[in-house]
């Protein structure tokens, strides 16, 4: 079976988001009325082969934890798993 997966990785709330803060400064400078809670993260789309949906979930969890994020700094969320 083949699955398409969408994952986001962003900093934990306890880690200061310097990129978000910089973006906020630029937006404010351009008179955009915005709150300072900007989170900058990364978005991943990948396709994976697995014998079942649960196997796919386990493998995706492992990929997100080991390859795409660092648990000291970041959190990840699996947005969607679609069977192709």
């Amino acid at each position, binding site marked *: 079976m083949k699955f398409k997966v969408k994952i986001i990785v962003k900093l934990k709330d306890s*880690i200061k988001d*310097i990129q978000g803060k*910089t973006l906020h400064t630029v937006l404010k400078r351009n008179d955009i009325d915005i709150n300072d809670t900007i989170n900058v993260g990364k978005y991943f789309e990948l396709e994976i082969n697995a014998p079942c949906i649960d196997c796919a979930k386990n493998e995706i969890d492992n990929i997100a934890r080991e390859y795409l994020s*660092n648990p*000291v*700094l970041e959190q990840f969320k699996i947005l969607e798993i679609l069977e192709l």
Partner: protein
Amino acid sequence: MKAAIIVFPGTNCDKDTYKALKHIGWEPQYVWHNETDLKGFDVAILPGGFSYGDYIRAGRLAKFSPILEELKRFIKDKQGFTLGICNGFQILCESKLLPGALTYNKSGRFICEDAQLSFKNRTITLPIAHKEGCFTCDDNTLETIKNRDMDIIKYITNYNGSISDICGLYNKEFKIFGLMPHPERAILPHASSNDGKTIFDFIKEKLNV
């Protein structure tokens, strides 16, 4: 002193390190990251640069290179000393060989300075050049670092927002040293500081060579 300089795609301080080590009489040798053998080396060095282009995160993809498995063996067997400089320190943290992680500088800027740091009860000057050099960890990890058999190397002035002014960590038991400043850039005669030798002399002392 036989030193392996481990080179990843995107490493760019390998030649600086090689020349610096030659200058102080060591025997450096480049080791490509796909290789799997560190036998015969006294020191393994992960030099600075942008391994794998810093893709995903600084140091993230390098931890999956074949040489990292051999480096873990090198460390476990206490074969010698491991030094990670700048990106090398990031790789050591990403690989969980040292605790914590390095994230964006508090200022959000790339910092290039001659930094003063406290090392072995004296102040030395070493260049820093990084954007993700802010050492971060949770309170429990910080306590563990302080209580464990681990030395903390601190900036005199905290340039990047690191917790507890940390610019380097040294695991005494397994001889693993991670350092954001660049000792190899403070060795050759043209450098603004020659304090880099202090770090390499420290390594030599720890190996009793």
